[in-house]
Structures are given as C-alpha cells and as structure tokens.
C-alpha cells in the first residue's frame, strides 16, 4: 500500500484495512498495527514536540518505553486520553489521534523558540532565573512556563467509562510473556499450581513476536509460541492476561496490574469496563520483564528518524514496516549489526554502519553477518552531528584516533538512523520490591541481586542473553517458584535472534559521550549530556540530586531509555565507576496508570457506602433535603411550599417549641454493654458515676480519651442490673466501639463484660415538644407516659402500634421529649404511624438543621463541632457530669495536669451579637479589642451559630480564653465588613431553668 510497507510478513492482518486520522489527516493501516507502526508505514516520522525545547521528535522505540511519541487519542469530547505512547496504541477503525505540545501546528511550532534559546536554558534555569521576586514565581513565571512546556490536555468532562477492580490469588505470578515468561508459566503450570501470566502487549510472546526466522526446539518460533500459548490457555488453573501491565510491586508479593479491556476496540461494548485493576497476591513471583534497548548519546540524536535499531527490527518483523529508505546504523553493540543485515535484506539501503564501540571488541554474530553481507562498516567511529529540519537527512561521522582525538569524517545522506547502545534489563519491579541490584560489568547494566520478597527474575530481565538460555532460565524459575525441581528439558534455538543473542551490550566508548553539541540523554524531559556535565561542575555529587536538578529520569517514562546513560555520563564526568555513582529509586507505576483504574468503583454515588435510615424513603418522598453525616444521609430540613432552608428551619423549630416535632435519630451509635461488671466497666470508661443509676433510668455520659479531652458523648440507659444501652455520636460509633474493645481486651481483662453494636438493630424516632406525650398516647397503650411514671431520663419497654419498643424519655431539644426505639425493620412503618397519629397535633418532621438550632438554644454541645479534640469537660461546660468520688476514669489523671486547669483555657460560652440580625460565621475568630492590626491576638472562635426563631435573634456558641470569667464583656469578631461586637453570655439561651424539659 505504501513504499514503507513490506509485501508480506509481520503479524498484521493485511485483509483488514483500518482508517484513522492523525492531526486531522486521514491514513490507513492494518489490523494488528499500532498507531506508531501505521504512521511509519505511511512515512510519518514527526509525531511530537519535545517538552522543554519544542524540538521536533519522532519514534525512538517500538514499545512502552517510548519517550517521544506522546499523543492524545480522542473518541469523543469526554473520552480524550492524553499522553499515550503511539507505540502502545492499537489501531482500530476510525481512531482519531492528535499530536501534543505544539502551536499552531506540529510542523510549525512557535514554542520552538525555546530551542533557539536553549543556550540560555540549561539545567536548573528556571530555578536560577525565576526565583525573585518570590511571589512572581507563583503568579507569573510558573503558569507561563507550565503553558509553554507541557504534555497533553486532560478532558474537562467527567469520564463516562467504568473501571473495575478485582483481587486475585495464585501460587505463581509471571510478569512478562516473552520466551522466558512463557517458559516459566509453562513449568509452573505443569505442577498444577495456579498461575497468572500477564503481559503489557496485545499479544503474548514478547520478543518472539518480532523473530520470524528463529527456531525453537526444531520448529519455527511462531509455531512454538502458538502451541505454548494454546496449552496455557487450555489449563483452567492458568489465567492469561494480555494488555495487562504489572505497574507496581507492593509488600508481601502484592502486585498491581492494570488490564486494558476496551481501548483497542472500535466500539467498546457497554458491558465492559474500560480497565480493570488487579491486586494479585502471589506466593511467588517470576519477573520475566525482558530488557530495554539503550539509545546512544550523540549530537542530534533526537531528530525524527533517529531510532533504536531493535525498534526498527520490530517494525519490520512484527508490523511489516520499513522505517526508512536509507539508514545510517550507529552500533554500540552487536545487535545493531544484526538490524542492519535484516533491514538491508528487506530493501532498506544501509549507508554505513558506524561502530562506536571501544576498540578491541570481539566480533559477534551480528557483526560477522554484516561483514559477510558486504555492508560498509567504519570502526573507531563516532557521530559528530545530524542534519534535517523535521526529519534526519544527513549524519556527520567522526573518527576516534588512538589518542582519543576526534577528526571529522564523511557525511552520509539518510532518512533514518538506527542506534543501539546495548540492552538494559528491566529491573523496575524487582527494585520496587526492595530487591537489591548489582552492576554487571560485562553487560554494562544493573541486574537483580538479593530479593526482598519471594520473587525471582528470569531471562533478559536478569541479563541472561540468548534465546535458548532465556527459555531454560524461565523454565527453571517457573518450576522453582512452583516448588518443583528445575525442568530437565533443555531448549534449543537456531538463527540470529537479535537482542536476545550473545552479548547484549557493551558500554559505548566514553570519548563519544560528552560532545560539544546537544546530545540527548532523557528525550522526554529534554536533558542533554551537557546538562548532566553542568550539574557535576556545579558541585552536585549525589545522583539523587543530579536527577532532581536536571530532571533526568523524571518524565512519564521514568527514564526507561535514559537512566543508565545518565549514570554512565555522571560516572565518566566524576571519574567514578557506574556502581559508585549509585542508582535512583525505581518508583511505581512502571508505565502511567489512569486515575480511573485506581478509583475503580469508588466514584459518584458509589464513592463511599451511602447509609440510609428506615425513614429515608418517607423523607425523600416529601422532598426532604439531605446532608451527609459520616456515611449517613440525614434529612436536613423538610421544605414545604417552596420554602428556603431558613424558612423551613424556623418553622420546624417553632413547631417543636410550641407543638410537636418528629426527628429521625436512628443514626446515633448504639452499643449494648452486658455482663455482671457492666457498671464497673462504664465507671472506668466514662467520666460519670454509673453505680447509682437505677434500672430503667438513663444519664448523659461523657467519654474522654486518656489525654483528658472530650472524645464522645451520649445518653446511656440501664436496661438491667447487668445490661446498659449506650448511645454514641453518629460519627463516633465505630471508634467508641473499638475503644471499648481495646480496654476490655487489653487492659481490663478482669471484667466480665461484652459489647455488641446495635446501631442498626434499632430505628429511633425522636418525638419532641409540648404535645409529644399526646401523640405517643395514641399509639402506646402499655406504658404509663405520665411525668410521674416516666419522668425525664426514664426508660420503659412496651409496644408502639403493636411493635416492641424501647422508650427513652430524653430530650435534645429542651422540650418534653421521647425517643422511640423499635426493631429497624419496623422503623419505616412506625415512623409513618407516629406521623399519622400526630396529624391532629400538627406534628412536624424536622431535620438535622432544626435539631442543631434547638440544641444550641439550650447550650447542648455537639462533640466535634463545639469541641475539637483539645477540650476538657470543664472547657466544654460539662464538668458537672464528672463522678467526683470515682478513683479513676479514662482521662481523669490528665485533668490533674496544671495546664488542664489553667484559667485561661478556652471555655464554651454563649455569644450574642449586639445587632440581633447578624448571624456569625462558624469558625470566625474572636478578639478582645476592636480595630486591631494584623496579626490580631485571637482569643477564641465561634463554634455554632444560628438564627433562633423562638428568640427572634441570632445566637452563637463559641470558645473563648477564660471565657466564663468574661461573662457580660463585649468582644469582637473581625470580618471583612468590619468588627462585629458580641456579648459573652451563658450558653443556655432558652428556658434556663429547664422547666419545659420536665413537662
């Protein structure tokens, strides 16, 4: 179809032509292509602009290590995925992709002015130049720098896709389905073990996918691959996961995988999530992650058309694409020679092979083949530069003399430059697992050493080169991981097998490393050899500091192609060996992971469990407005006739004060404390005295932590000598339960007491107001509700509307009040029955907002609102609840510390604005004198503030240093509109005598 597509071969399906666009231009490719291979087949080499200098960039690699070709793939307005590597985007019919970081167009990019300015944009330039004035960094420089240097643009619409997660368990997890990984999985599966084999590519096979001419065990490698995968697939104990990246290695052999389910599909089925995050727990892990080819740092090595030699082989063999017409090959290792031979055979002219290896290399099979094929080889060569605006057109070679001096050599016209600096084992996951690394001098790279987890590496991932050796290594690792003896079968292989063969790499000669012109090390972050040299000259010693200063290895590719080259250059500059320079940390993720897959189902309504009470449907049907309290949805107010919140809350409050209201209190935590020592336990835990609480009586309890600060509160009822019903705050239920278990299990093991959560066993309806008794009397026939028989804080068992009931005579409103507890399945019906019975008394459902106002009118605190974890009972004005005769309770000792009794501690007070119409802001600060200049001396803050309908004015609670002694004083709340004068008053604003409560 184009001159770059070969006539046959590769793993693409030439019968299925796929249309796609790149930057608005239409192209076609084949099923099996990646976006990168399809663009190359169309002769497109220019794929992006670099991050900092906006230099034109093409493909460097063929796999996930690609640093340059970041594109945005667009399905629709909401589904735009930025920063994906064109090498990992599988082509589908109708795919739309765009280049990034260019304006107005990829071929004419105004941002490229940065490239002309590059002599003044060295490493650390931003930090050095834009430091002063400091404020300008945030306001001026940073936004502009960010706009100019950038990646793709995230979509602004919510992500419409679903993301799944799952946990999986296996005996052996094999990461990487190249030859070593396949052999490992096969050997492990042979023992009957549960095996998971994952690979980031669309097809299993790894390097074998680009080795058509190789044989394994006497048959074509492709046949071996198909048979091996088929056998694994047929085994029910084996899970094969293609398109699945092992991105993170977490403690105790917990490996995170992300499986891409729909990105390669033209029309993703609605039933499929886009991605699935796997959390695999493996008894043993085999890392068969292969190796990544290294670029060579020569001047102009980033021009489009300069790519890795192994990548060119992959494009040729796997995708049937010739990467160019005429190539200059820069050989830092034997694999480059092999690429030259194979591309030459496929019709690519080889201008010259420049051998940049140190003198005295033993000729490998690739070099021998190249010489036999009559390809021109220049030894002791180096590259002095490249030319070409948007694509390489010429290479200028140099010659390294015996003294190390470089003399200019010939120029070679070309449209592609293939380079190979050797192979770096992918030790990322091993290193993430905290395994040690060791430097292999022969390989010129780090390989896995002592593991920290139950993990082992196999094949090229640990520097075992050669196909047969890799297969054997994989099989041995798989068998050992499954607890079996190593396989006795020895694999054989035949044919040149590229990067898999012989010696995978040798460090290039140092003379070529720091040339005068711009030689890129980290392509994605635009870090050059000069930047690294400069960092060294400026005194940076530690590789960690050099990394941060130059940003080498800090891009989205995490330095996959650049890491070792950067180390080699720093080592050479500082006259150290690479292992002496050390390594920076390999961090997860191996390749970028979408936020969607990490969030999984935890989004929107399913972000957290939404807990609803039994009356929820009733309230929702009546238009209640809900608020979140912890995980609970609680009715905040019940607007009628289009009321706003203010009007609704005023009406609800007045209804409770003058008639009767009903409120859903089901969310309160409830704990049943049972056992002969139950009262002793509560005595030790709560500040109150419980010994003298009679059966069928209740009391307001306060719980501190041992630091003396208020932790929780709630009414506690004694149901029997040995049985208490403890209520907690809605948000405190779980932590109070845990605290009780802690003391029972670890401190007071002498007590015969057990606790059980009954929060959800009971639905609770609070019926509050002067007519509360009248309402309940309609439904309760077996309990004497009179004040004499059931006084304030009394408890009774009985039935309401025929349903068993636990009835509390309690009030959080200051009015005559009851709390009806019924088994939760009856909650909805009992709620409706009470509402029905209350109709003639004008019963008014009220929400949490009115509840808050009502309790504030009475000065009742809400733990967590009026307290903040630093308040003692005295600070919170509830010291009256302390059981004075008790030898100890949790927190008592702390209350004896001098600072806890200091008269200037912040104490709870009431606050009245002098202007009754002003409702203070909760959280507003309080000062003693007006018109202070900042920084003002803050003596407290407002904790609760409302308009009180019954009082016809605003009220507030606050904490003020030495507040109780300031009663009657005028203080100030500074606000943007001016200081608001407030008077310090008692926190009880309404019915100070408490007469209504006892009605």
């Amino acid at each position, binding site marked *: 179809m184009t001159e770059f597509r070969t006539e046959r071969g590769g793993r693409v399906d030439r019968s299925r032509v796929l249309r796609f666009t790149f930057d608005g231009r239409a192209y076609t490719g084949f099923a099996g292509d990646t976006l990168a291979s399809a663009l190359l087949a169309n002769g497109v080499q220019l794929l992006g602009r670099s991050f900092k200098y906006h230099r034109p960039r093409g493909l460097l690699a063929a796999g996930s290590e690609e640093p340059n070709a970041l594109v945005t793939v667009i399905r629709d307005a909401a589904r735009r995925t930025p920063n994906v590597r064109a090498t990992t985007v599988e082509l589908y019919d109708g795919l739309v992709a765009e280049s990034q970081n260019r304006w107005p167009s990829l071929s004419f990019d105004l941002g490229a002015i940065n490239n002309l300015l590059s002599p003044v944009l060295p490493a650390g330039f931003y930090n050095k130049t834009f430091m002063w004035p400091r404020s300008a960094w945030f306001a001026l420089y940073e936004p502009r720098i960010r706009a100019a240097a950038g990646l793709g643009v995230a979509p602004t619409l919510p992500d419409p896709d679903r993301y799944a*997660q799952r946990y*999986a368990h296996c005996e052996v997890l094999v990461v990487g389905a190249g030859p070593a990984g396949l052999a490992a999985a096969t050997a492990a599966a042979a023992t009957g073990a549960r095996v998971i084999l994952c690979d980031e590519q669309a097809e299993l096979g790894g390097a074998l996918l680009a080795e058509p001419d190789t044989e394994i065990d006497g048959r074509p490698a492709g046949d071996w691959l198909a048979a091996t995968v088929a056998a694994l697939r047929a085994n029910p104990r084996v899970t094969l996961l293609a398109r699945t990246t092992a991105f993170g290695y977490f403690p105790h052999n917990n490996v995170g995988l992300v499986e891409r389910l729909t990105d390669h599909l033209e029309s993703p089925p609605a*039933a499929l999530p886009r991605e699935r995050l796997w*959390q695999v727990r493996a008894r043993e892990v085999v890392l068969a992650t292969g190796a990544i080819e290294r670029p060579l740092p020569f001047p102009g090595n980033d021009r489009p058309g300069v790519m890795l030699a192994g990548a060119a082989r992959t494009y040729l063999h796997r995708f049937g694409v010739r990467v160019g017409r005429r190539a200059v090959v820069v050989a830092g290792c034997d694999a480059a020679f092999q690429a030259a031979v194979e591309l030459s055979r496929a019709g690519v002219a080889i201008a010259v092979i420049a051998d940049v290896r140190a003198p005295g290399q033993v000729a490998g099979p690739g070099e021998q083949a190249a010489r036999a094929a009559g390809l021109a080889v220049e030894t002791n060569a180096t590259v002095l530069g490249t030319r070409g605006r948007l694509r390489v057109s010429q290479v200028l070679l140099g010659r390294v003399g015996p003294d190390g001096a470089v003399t200019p050599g010939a120029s070679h016209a070309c449209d592609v430059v293939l380079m190979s600096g050797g192979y770096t084992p992918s030790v990322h996951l091993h290193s993430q697992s905290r395994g040690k690394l060791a430097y292999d001098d022969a390989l010129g790279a780090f390989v896995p050493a002592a593991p920290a987890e139950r993990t082992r590496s196999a094949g090229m991932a640990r520097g075992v080169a050669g196909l047969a050796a890799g297969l054997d290594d994989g099989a041995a690792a798989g068998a050992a991981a499954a607890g079996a003896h190593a396989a006795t079968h020895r694999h054989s292989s035949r044919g040149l097998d590229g990067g898999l063969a012989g010696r995978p790499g040798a460090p290039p000669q140092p003379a070529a490393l720091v040339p005068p012109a711009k030689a890129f090390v980290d392509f994605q972050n635009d870090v050059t050899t000069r930047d690294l040299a400069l960092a060294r000259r400026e005194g940076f010693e530690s590789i960690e500091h050099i990394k941060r200063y130059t940003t080498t290895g800090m891009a989205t590719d995490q330095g996959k192609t650049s890491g070792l080259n950067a180390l080699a250059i720093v080592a050479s500059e500082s006259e150290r060996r690479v292992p002496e320079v050390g390594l920076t940390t390999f961090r997860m993720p191996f390749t970028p992971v979408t936020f969607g897959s990490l969030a999984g189902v935890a989004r929107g309504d399913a972000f957290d469990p939404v807990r609803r009470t039994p009356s929820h449907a009733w309230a929702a049907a009546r238009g209640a407005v809900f608020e979140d309290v912890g995980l609970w949805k609680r009715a905040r107010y019940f607007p009628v006739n289009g009321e706003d919140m203010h009007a609704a809350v005023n009406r609800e409050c007045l209804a409770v004060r003058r008639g009767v209201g009903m409120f859903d209190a089901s969310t309160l935590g409830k704990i049943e404390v*049972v056992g002969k020592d139950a009262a002793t336990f509560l005595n030790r835990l709560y500040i109150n005295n419980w010994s003298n609480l009679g059966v069928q009586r209740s009391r307001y309890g306060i719980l501190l932590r041992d630091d003396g600060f208020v932790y929780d509160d709630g009414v506690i009822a004694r149901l029997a000598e040995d049985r208490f019903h403890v209520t907690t705050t809605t948000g405190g239920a779980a932590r109070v339960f845990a605290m009780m278990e802690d003391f029972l299990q670890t401190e007071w093991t002498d007590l015969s007491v057990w606790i*059980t959560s009954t929060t959800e066993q009971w639905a609770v309806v609070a019926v509050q107001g002067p007519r509360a008794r009248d309402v309940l009397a309609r439904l309760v026939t077996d309990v004497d509700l009179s004040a004499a028989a059931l006084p304030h804080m009394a408890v009774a068992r009985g039935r309401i*509307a025929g349903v068993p009931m636990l009835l509390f005579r309690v009030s959080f409103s200051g009015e005559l009040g009851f709390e009806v507890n019924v088994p939760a399945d009856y909650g909805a019906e009992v709620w409706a029955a009470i509402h029905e019975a209350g109709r003639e008394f004008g019963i008014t459902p009220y929400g949490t907002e009115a509840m808050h106002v009502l309790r504030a009118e009475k000065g009742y605190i809400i733990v967590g609102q009026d307290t903040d974890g630093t308040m003692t009972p005295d600070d919170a004005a509830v010291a009256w609840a302390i059981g004075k005769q008790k030898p100890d309770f949790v927190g008592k000792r702390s209350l004896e510390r001098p600072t806890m009794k200091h008269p200037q501690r912040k104490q709870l007070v009431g606050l009245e604005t002098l202007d009754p119409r002003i409702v203070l802001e909760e959280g507003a600060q309080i000062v003693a004198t007006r018109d202070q200049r900042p920084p003002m001396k803050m003596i407290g803050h407002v904790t609760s503030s409302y308009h009180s309908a019954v009082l016809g004015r605003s009220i507030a609670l606050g904490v003020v240093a030495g507040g109780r002694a300031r009663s009657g004083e005028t203080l100030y709340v500074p606000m943007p509109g001016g200081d608001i004068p407030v008077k310090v008053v008692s926190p009880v604003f309404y019915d100070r005598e408490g007469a209504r409560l006892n009605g």
Partner: protein
Amino acid sequence: MADMLKRTSPPVASRPWLAPLPAATRYSLRGGAEARAAVAAAFGVEPPTQACRAASRGARSALWLGPDEHLLIAPESDGATLATALPAALAGVPHSLVDVSHRQVAFEVRGPHAEWLLAHGCPLDLDVAAFPVGMCTRTVFVKAEVLLWRTADDRFRIETWRSFTDYVITLLAETALELPA
C-alpha cells in the same frame, strides 16, 4: 393496628446470581466455653470452636466470628421461643446475648460466577481450597464490612448491616454487567 405494621428491610432483587434470603432471628452471643455449652443445649447447635467455621442443624446455625463471639441464626418464626429459651439456658453463666435480628440483611450470591463476582471487592482467596464450604468470616467488600459464609461450592451467604446492603448489591450488580446474559 398491631398486626398491620409491615417489616421492611432494604430490598434485594432476585437475579440469576443473587437471591434474597428471608428475615431471620439473630443473636450475638459473647462469652466462653460455659456459655457455648449452655447455648448448645438450648439452641440445638453447638457453637464451633474452630475459627471461621459455621455449624448448622436444620434451619439453625451458629457461626464463629471471634474467639468469644458467635452469631446464632434461626428462622424468624423461632424468635419468640428463643427469646425465652436462650436467656433461660444462659442464666447464671457469664455471657452477653443480644438480639441483632434486624441489624443485618442476608442474601445469597450463587452460581458459577459467585467467586468471580465476590473477588471484585473481597480481598480474601475465595478458591474452595482456601475458603471451603462451611467457612465463615467477617471481611470487607470494597468499603463495606460483610459477613461471608460459604454454604456450598457455588453459594455464599452474605450478611451486611442493613444500611450497607444497597452499596454491596449495587457494586455486585455493576460487576455482574460483565456476566454473559
């Protein structure tokens, strides 16, 4: 009026992989060997001492939830009988017996995909070799606590606190979208 009031619990729709289970009588039993022995006689099922195991006889079951904690499950119709019989049997024995019948909602995840569905939110190894029939435990399903009890190779009884039922079912249903219709 007394008989008019209906029980309503959070709804569990019936699906090929999901079945609601009837309301039940449930007691949380806490205590030691003495309490277990007393209950064994009155309840008809001996509370297991092996960790994370359930024992059943007829329609009654006792589930080990902790070394001093068992959940007793019986048909709803046994409620009145047990409300008398259990406290009577336990009189004088150190224990705590608390009615939690309404605290929880039970449903069953079943069929060939039961393990697969649950693995989306439950971090335990649910392979029948690791989580055999008769095993029961509290664990987590995504962000909710659940009680998971394998009653057959392809059946799990799940109990959640009632306000978490909707969350667990919703997430299971989202996962089940992938199942073949």
